[in-house]
């Protein structure tokens, strides 16, 4: 076993260590949780943390690995959340097993988000840089408004959907049969959802996400995606189809966000579409940027710490976003300014020297 590990390539070794770290973290937290050692507020955060890890890792695929800034990642989470909630609520009678229903909901959420990603990707990926960023932002807002117009219910006849364009209709207009239930009430969002998400499911989703993203990056397709990031013209000159691989990266990212959304949606009995607005997209972007573009490990840690931290420092809450803003600016300045870079590199060298000198 150890020999096999030693023989593995360097980047593969990093991947195995990442998996190992996540598994260990899960085991420790699960034991603590079962023993009742986690405070209630922390225990309630376990599922959201998993969701945000998946969101951050998947956005890193778009921003860090494909190299295109997406400002609408929460939109895919939203699509996944509401389609997942609809699937789970509509199937509640026919599939009593909660884990199975959660699995189906997550697959449905992922599929819908993939379709949304594909539809959005077609126009978006023809643009570059700033234009692409602003159009993803636009799509995020469009998704939010469209979901705000949805009224969905289910009864013995199946699903009933109203698209409430004028804002004049209510759940009454669904004309549900006796025993039917309302799943989404337009701007009031999903209400009365049976919460079936679990930490174990979250852990499994995180692992699947890691395997997909890390293995993709180390494969032929992932190399092509990174080649587009580094130099699109050179990539074309060696026969790499730009649209195909941009789309691959973008849709994979959307799909994972959709699965995370479904898990998130089924963790709360009430859910508003406004939860997944521009601010959420930015929050996830902050995780990615602070964790390091292209650095999967960094995304996991940033998502975890920055989800726990504000809750842990409740009194500090009003300053949270202010601190985020300052940190975001400082990190960008620190990592992109030549003078500051040299300054930090100098500090690191000194620290190393000091360490060597001491030893």
């Amino acid at each position, binding site marked *: 076993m150890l020999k096999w590990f030693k023989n593995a390539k360097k980047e593969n070794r990093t991947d195995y260590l990442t998996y190992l770290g996540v598994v260990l973290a899960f085991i420790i937290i699960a034991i603590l949780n079962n023993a009742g050692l986690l405070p209630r507020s922390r225990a309630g955060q376990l599922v959201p943390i998993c969701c945000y890890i998946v969101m951050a890792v998947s956005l890193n695929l778009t921003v860090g690995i494909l190299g295109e800034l997406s400002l609408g990642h929460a939109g895919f989470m939203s699509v996944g959340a509401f389609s997942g909630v609809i699937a789970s609520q509509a199937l509640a009678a026919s599939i009593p097993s909660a884990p199975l229903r959660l699995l189906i909901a997550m697959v449905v959420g992922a599929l819908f988000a993939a379709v949304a990603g594909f539809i959005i990707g077609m126009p978006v990926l023809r643009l570059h840089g700033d234009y692409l960023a602003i159009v993803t932002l636009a799509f995020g807002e469009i998704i939010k408004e469209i979901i705000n117009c949805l009224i969905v219910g289910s009864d013995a006849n199946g699903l009933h959907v109203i698209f409430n364009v004028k804002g004049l209709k209510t759940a009454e207009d669904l004309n549900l049969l006796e025993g039917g239930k309302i799943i989404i009430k337009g701007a009031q969002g999903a209400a009365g959802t049976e919460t079936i998400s679990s930490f174990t499911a979250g852990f499994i989703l995180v692992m699947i996400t890691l395997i997909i993203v890390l*293995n*993709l990056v180390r494969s*032929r397709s992932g190399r092509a995606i990174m*080649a587009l990031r580094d130099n699109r013209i050179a990539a074309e*000159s060696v026969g790499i189809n730009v649209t195909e691989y941009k789309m*691959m990266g973008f849709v994979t990212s959307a799909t994972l966000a959709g699965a995370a959304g479904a898990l998130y949606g089924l963790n709360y009995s009430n859910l508003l579409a406004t939860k997944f607005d521009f601010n959420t997209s930015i929050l996830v972007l902050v995780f990615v940027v602070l964790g390091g573009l292209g650095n999967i490990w960094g995304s996991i840690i940033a998502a975890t710490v920055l989800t726990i931290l504000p809750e842990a420092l409740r009194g500090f809450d009003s300053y949270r976003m202010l601190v985020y803003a300052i940190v975001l600016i400082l990190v960008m300045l620190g990592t992109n300014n030549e003078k500051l870079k040299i300054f930090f590199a100098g500090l690191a060298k000194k620290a190393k020297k000091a360490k060597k000198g001491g030893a």
Partner: protein
Amino acid sequence: MGKVKSVNDSPLVPLPTNAFVPERDLLKTPILETRHLGIDFGGLKAVEDFNLIIGRTEIAGLIGPNGAGKTTIFNLLTKVYQPTRGTILFDGYDTHEMDTVALNKAGVARTFQNIRLFNNLTVEDNVKLGLHNDIKYGMVPGILRLPSYWKEEKRSHEKAMELLSIFNMEGMASWQAGSLPYGAQRRLEIIRALATDPKLLLLDEPAAGMNPSETAELMENIVAIRDRFQIAVLLIEHDMNLVMSICEGIAVLNFGKLIAKGTPEQIQANPVVIEAYLGKKHGEEA
């Protein structure tokens, strides 16, 4: 799109009488033929009536003063720019409908004047990206690491190492491409282009920034590459020593127009070329 054709199924195109092609390539369809090729930028005719033929295993040079439109020709040949006028026949087929990717799949590979490597990837990954269309497994087998992934990755690793050995760069395989010294970056670009299994290799100033001994080595290597892979090479170069000693045919471009074609001896003796490079003599101006 991108159907790779074998040498023999291309239609035989008769050579125009004024074309220069080395004797050994005479009875075969030329690898590249351009007819009345031209492109306008705004109102400016950047390239006009460009006619060139390159034999299957010829090493050809494209020279001319700065701003003559040499790199523009490369961009036209690889469809980075769409020609305004004229036809490009590659391997006997019209490339009218093809884009950069399709042309690469058909067998045109190039390097860039301002080096364009995948700077954040390793040297080996850069070569493997050249092998991209040769590696046969898709996204899902890659994610699931099916046997085809391991098999193809192993094969492409070996192939990449073999290609790197042309320039003795195996030892640098795990370096980051962006951190290579300048000369090595130029060589890596050539290897990456070669990895796409081209029939025509376009080199844009391969010796730029190299010292004389590096240039001499590069010259040997270009000839060796042609001999080993039996491909045609078209190069843009300002180093006249390099051009005159390895090119079999030379085309001279000035102000977007072809002013001379022929063997190195003919070009060196051509008064029009001398005038383009040195300007008119004082006496003649009056």
